[in-house]
């Protein structure tokens, strides 16, 4: 056992853990951060898009030295048919601003940088060390952690669980339940290397401009899921993810979906001639508001993916992670400055502060969405995309059919696939979940 005591132990060095450790250390707390990977970022997987605003609130001048790939000026949504896509593009020169709003990043590099800031702020960071269990006293209060190193028990006033989506430590300690297969998605991604100029030409970019494609439809084979294509400086991140429960049900394998996505005629030309350098897989919490576990207790708080804080609709995860890490640190600091103990009743402040922030407000807004998309996945991810693409083809193709008849055909294809009541019902349910 280590005699030395810490104010806080942060378990994990991803976005949430780094944000928490950094914020705690800058407030003068004695912080120990434990990471199982070789370095922060070595095991962290994300698409990945960074939202500047949430990082600015932690490190205002991050743009000076953070490893950023491209700032995003264009967003595309693709509704995928078998051999087509119907798209919505938004591109604006306004995003070529002095302080851009969104960037693509490569987590292995970005997290390394972030963690360096954590160390500079004064936190002690120990990598290649796995926390095996939480140490609890006779009353269940968390008083420290046990690690896989010899003599590896360390005590602290509070433990910040930033252990990632699986939440194993919290589960093992009986503080929460393991996430349900309906509440997590399994995503796989590849990094496709291409010369900078080729990427810029294919995506109509110049300099550090970047574009993002989010795709849904037939590519997920009727499962609740999405694909993505993000431009980095010299490579393209491309991936697809679906709910674990859907994979279980359909028997589809993630890599087959990825291969199909890559071969889709709308996607293949974008990555043609590229060299794949990396293959990664990751679980993403997608259960939304209703899947959030207990966020605090005697001597502990949970942040980021481990707290299932992820906005699947807006594809936002890392900013919720960073923000929850920062807010947890602020709450802990407030309790400590009042010289009060890290009890559940005092740490409830964290949840209250989180509820006042965009994190919980956004998740609350979409609280019914995961369930709706999950139950209606065949309709939303297969039937409708097929119908829309068929309708577009019908609309665009010139073949001498009178326009009136074409309209009738399109309407008929919709009503034969789904009854009028079904169509209105879906629209109503979607609108209500969105509200």
């Amino acid at each position, binding site marked *: 056992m*280590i005699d030395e005591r810490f104010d806080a132990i942060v378990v994990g060095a991803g976005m949430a853990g780094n944000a928490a450790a950094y914020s705690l250390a800058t407030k003068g707390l004695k912080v120990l951060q434990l990471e199982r990977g070789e*370095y922060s970022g070595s095991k962290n997987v994300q698409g990945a898009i960074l939202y500047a605003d949430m990082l600015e609130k932690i490190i205002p001048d991050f743009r000076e030295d953070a490893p950023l790939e491209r700032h995003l000026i264009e967003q595309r949504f693709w509704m995928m048919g078998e051999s087509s896509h119907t798209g919505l593009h938004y591109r604006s020169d306004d995003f070529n601003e002095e302080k851009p709003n969104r960037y693509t990043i490569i987590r292995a590099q970005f997290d390394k940088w972030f963690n360096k800031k954590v160390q500079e702020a004064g936190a*002690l960071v*120990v990598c290649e060390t796995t926390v095996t269990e939480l140490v609890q006293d006779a009353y269940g209060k968390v008083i420290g952690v046990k690690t896989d*190193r*010899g*003599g590896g*028990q360390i005590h602290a006033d509070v433990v910040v669980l930033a252990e990632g989506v699986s939440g194993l430590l919290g589960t093992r300690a009986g503080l929460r339940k393991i996430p349900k297969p309906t509440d997590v998605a399994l995503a796989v991604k590849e990094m496709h*290397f291409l010369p900078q100029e080729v990427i810029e030409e294919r995506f109509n970019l110049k300099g550090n401009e970047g574009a993002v494609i989010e795709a849904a439809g037939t590519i997920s084979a009727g499962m609740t899921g999405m694909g993505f294509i993000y431009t980095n400086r010299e490579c393209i991140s491309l991936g697809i993810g679906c709910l674990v429960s859907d994979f279980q049900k359909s028997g589809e394998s993630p890599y087959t979906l990825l291969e199909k996505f890559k071969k889709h005629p709308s996607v293949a030309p974008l990555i043609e001639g590229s*060299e794949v350098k990396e293959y990664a897989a990751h679980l993403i919490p997608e259960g939304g508001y209703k899947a959030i576990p207990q966020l605090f207790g005697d001597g502990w708080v949970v942040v980021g993916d481990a707290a299932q804080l992820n906005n699947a609709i807006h594809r936002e995860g890392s900013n919720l992670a960073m923000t929850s890490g920062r807010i947890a640190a602020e709450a802990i600091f407030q309790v400590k400055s009042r010289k009060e103990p890290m009890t559940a009743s005092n740490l409830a402040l964290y949840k209250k502060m989180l509820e006042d922030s965009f994190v919980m407000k956004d998740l609350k807004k979409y609280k019914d969405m995961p369930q709706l998309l999950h139950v209606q996945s065949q309709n939303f991810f297969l039937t409708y995309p097929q119908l829309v693409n068929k309708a577009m083809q019908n609309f665009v193709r010139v073949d001498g059919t009178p326009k009136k008849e074409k309209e009738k055909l399109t309407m008929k294809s919709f009503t034969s696939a789904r009854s009028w009541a079904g169509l209105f019902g879906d629209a109503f349910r979607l609108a209500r979940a969105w509200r």
Partner: protein
Amino acid sequence: MHIVVCIKQVPDSAQIRVHPVTNTIMRQGVPTIINPYDLFALEEAMRLRDKFGGEVTVLTMGPPSAEDSLRKALTFGVDRAVLLTDRFFAGSDTLATSFALATAISKIGETWGKPDIVFTGKQTIDGDTAQVGPGIAKRLGLMQVTYVAKVAEYDGEERTVTLERRAEGGTQVLKSSLPCLIAMLEGTNEIRRGTMADALRGARAEIVKWSAKDAGVEDLTKCGLKGSPTIVKRVFAPSPRAEKAQMIEVPEGASLADALIDDIFKRQPNLEPDLTALARGF
């Protein structure tokens, strides 16, 4: 006992990427590791210390970022780390490197006690020369034993060590007087996992940083590019061989050797008369 272990930070060869366009090695972003051969030296040194007492000082020369490898060595459980870093050392070949390290080891001796043993790995994975260890021994006038698999005995009274050295055809058991330099062979032990206390100490330890001046280097012309007679003329990637392996059809009952010889002669028409002429000449 005072043991000095020389280590080097090298690019992780398992993760080196070749730029798909220019075909050059992309050094940027390639993770660095402690030269794998040096890990055996580190472990052997710590085993001796644990058994007979004393201290292990780890030394490296490199850019400021080489601090990472020293910090890692500290988390394994070594007692002290020294980083020799100075722009004067840039571009050193093995001659200049062994000069700088030998000078620093003398300085380490003055500061923390004369080392009894200096350990190095067999060679590095980026230079592959195996020259720096022997170079240090020569400059410091130490006994040197290379390709060592194990330090079998240590006699503090008599000031000797008994070593097992792998050689072609077997293992030599050698006795050397101290002080000596030992270059450790790979696969001979397994680097330990430091305790939690080691890990904490490694994370917060102050690394001793020495410039050329701090290390007591007086003649700067023996350092870095200036002190390196080795010249790299050209670096190139070998072009892949066009030949492919082929299966030879051997008819049922025929001799495999005859079939092979026939095939070789068929492909190299000049070979048969040449060989025949050669055979006649004898």
